[in-house]
């Protein structure tokens, strides 16, 4: 296997558990083939019930249903003991086990078999990387949603994994906190950590991101973000076909095309749009 490979899913399917044996079990995921390489940013997109959370939980090693197929770890992950791919979930409320951020990280590190004498330092370092060290002793109940998510991200960093799984981490946050959490994870991604990021907010896509779109449990698109928005003569873009509203920037670019203004590459942020129009 190549050195860059982190993990690979081959012909994975997941069916819901059913109480009734005669009943045909519902397929949550089917025919999933995907590989994740080191340092990638993958945006996982799909409507409610499309199976994207299940896919992420599967990679995180959770029991999500009756699964079949293969999940192969690359060398970097195969050698790890304990958690291979840590996950941050959407609900900040129920996702912390400890009573304070420090406690939560200590529990996580203890359960992962980190040597006792190293735990305090690793926990503090991880909290510092998400800007939560000065609140390390604050009771969980008094933290905001964004702060709880930063603690959860710190937990993932503390176990020093080469990949982070993020299940709509910004869904419950206000715009400022969302941007902050998003920026932190982008920064970690630039430092070489691969990220799989589930989102409904399409304005979180950046140029060069890999987008995987799911519909009814199947991968319907896997490619660059620009391709996700690409319209062909006869067809709407994948984004529109899935029933998502494209961000204002992308819609402007589409409209410019109608007015005969061709842009060299599709901009995804306001700044990129301004640059693209100027550079023509």
């Amino acid at each position, binding site marked *: 296997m190549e050195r860059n490979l982190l993990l690979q899913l081959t012909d994975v399917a997941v069916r819901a558990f059913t109480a009734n044996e005669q009943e045909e079990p519902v397929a949550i995921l089917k025919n999933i083939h995907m590989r994740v390489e080191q340092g990638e940013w993958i945006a996982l997109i799909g409507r*409610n*019930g499309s199976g994207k959370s299940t896919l992420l*939980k599967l990679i*995180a090693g*959770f029991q999500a249903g009756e699964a079949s197929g293969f999940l192969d770890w690359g060398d970097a992950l195969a050698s790890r003991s*304990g*958690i291979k791919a840590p996950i*941050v*979930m959407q609900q900040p409320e*129920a*996702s*912390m*086990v400890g009573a*304070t951020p*420090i*406690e939560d990280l*200590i*529990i*996580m590190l*203890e*359960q*992962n*078999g*980190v*040597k*006792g004498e190293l*735990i*305090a*330092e690793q926990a*503090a*370092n991880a909290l*510092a*990387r998400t*800007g939560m060290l000065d609140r*390390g*002793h*604050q*009771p969980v109940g008094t933290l*905001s*949603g964004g702060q709880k998510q930063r603690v959860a991200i710190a*937990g993932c960093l503390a176990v020093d994994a080469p990949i982070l799984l993020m299940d709509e981490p910004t869904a419950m946050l206000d715009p400022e906190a*969302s*941007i*902050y959490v998003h920026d932190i994870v982008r920064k970690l991604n630039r430092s070489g950590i691969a990220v799989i990021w589930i989102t409904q907010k399409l304005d979180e896509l950046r140029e060069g991101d890999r987008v995987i779109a799911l519909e009814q449990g199947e991968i319907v698109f896997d490619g660059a973000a620009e391709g996700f928005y690409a319209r062909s003569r006869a067809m709407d873009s994948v984004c529109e076909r899935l*029933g*998502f*509203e494209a961000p*204002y*920037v992308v*819609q*402007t670019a589409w*409209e*410019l095309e*109608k*007015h005969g*203004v061709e842009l060299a590459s599709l901009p995804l942020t*306001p700044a990129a749009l*301004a*640059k693209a*129009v100027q550079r023509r």
Partner: protein
Amino acid sequence: MSGNWTFDDAAVYAAAEYGTKRIIGPIDGSFEQGRITLLVGANGAGKSTLLEMMAGLRPLHSGSVALGSSSLWQKGKRRKMRLDRNVLLHTGISLQHSESQWFAPKVSDEFRFSLKPYKLPEAEQEDRMRKAMEATGLPPQLTENDPWTLSGGQQRRLSLACLIACQPQWLLLDEPTSGLDTAGISQLLDVLQAHREAGGGAVISTHDLDVLLPIADEVAVMEDGLLLQAVPAAEWAAVHASDYAAPQALRVLKELRHARFELSQPDTALWPSLSELAGAIASQLAATGHGELREPKLMQKQQTAQGADAGRERQARSVDYDVESPHQSQEADKVNISPQIGAGGLASRFDPRALILSYVLLAAAVLMQGTWPGIGVAVVLTGIALFPLRAQIRPWIKVIRAYSIMIAAIAFIAGIQLKPLGFEWTNAQFTLLRFSGLLVVMLLGLPMLAMVTPLRVQRAIEQTFGWLGRFKVPVSSVALTVTLIFRFIPLLGSEWQRFAAIAHARGKATTQAGSLPVSMLFPVVIPYIRSLLRLAEQLADALEARGIGNPNGKPTRGFKLRFAARDALLMLAALLSASLLFYLNAVL
């Protein structure tokens, strides 16, 4: 009845670790009828609390709230404050989690529950239900379905449909766009616009300005529990165009203007339509050499003092954000992070082992007391111990009162003699004595939950009983279970309150939000139990995510409890008190 909302120094407080704490207020100002006002501000600024206050779900600590000429709170019988029924009937609130409020077997029954306070004839109810479902895009054949079998998006639509079926003058909506797809959002906007055209008003707490700002009349910023002056939506957009979290359309305009594009501001809309914008760009690109330097015009336009201040403060905060990791991570190893010391407060002051031993000792001594003077001394000692912890006792006052009444009743029954009919004081007194002892022991135990943290209890169990592990006793599993129960207990109360508030608002109960009429118990219990199951599932996920239950894992220990001087003092105090009680019991 109709009119504007007016607030006069209105404030809401909640119980806190020490006494009470201001959540929002003092709030002055008004919301005008026939207008859509957006409430914006960071999470925790008090937006939801303000909406709940307007719906009567939060008692006022001070000040007043009125709709038109009617005050929301009226003095009722026995000088208890009650809500004005008319105000409630004209107000429809949708809270976060309103989409998981279902308890009835059929969708139509959910409508009937929402419409019940309006006492409408059957035909009218049917008619309103049909119209509301149509307006929110729910297929009419769903009326006979179980609400829980609807998809997530349909459940959100149903909660909006139940609300508009009541045709309230005012809609109070908390994050109405979350979880809605593109079609759902455009239906919501249609509903809101129709509501305004019919003369109704709306106050909407939201983060989704991209969607809602274009139809809003006004924007009111909430910050740290205070309501800043509402400004017209266009004015707000002008002032906040350069916020990094502003709607994307505004940021696009700003960037383009910065790139020297001349873009006119439309008269009615907040930003140009896509075709207008693209047309303007295309024509300016065509006219070669768009080099004429012009400063962006819009930016300097009328900045209201408060709006601008709020913007500046927000930016200041974002700067704070950016000053993070690099120097902090260098300092990381210098920081003392031992969980036993310092900032943890009450919860980490004492070793759980010292607390539990002291408690057991005292409890045994109290329960031994067989005389009234003994109980009296026990009460005094308990009072001394609990005085510094009175804030932890306060939330339990109602339970304590109920328990005391129960004791009195049981003692009375115990004293009744049937043959001959009479009252035997000695029997009653004996019962009273026993139960009073229990009450004292219960009181002593109440603050314990706040004085330990789950991890510290777990560690206490492991360190005390760890040796049993050698005999195949699953000590760490037991310890972990205890930890989780501790973590789960506070959630039980907060979830109950969430669904009680929703049922209270739908049923238009006029009592204080804490006391729900018995008839409304059922609509709370079902969504409550479902939500507890969901919480448990999330907690299980959180545990798995932390690697707990990993069969290959060998957990380590990141910290150990150590007996400190204050733990010794605590135990000494308990020992002395217990000895005094033992002595009294022997002498008296």
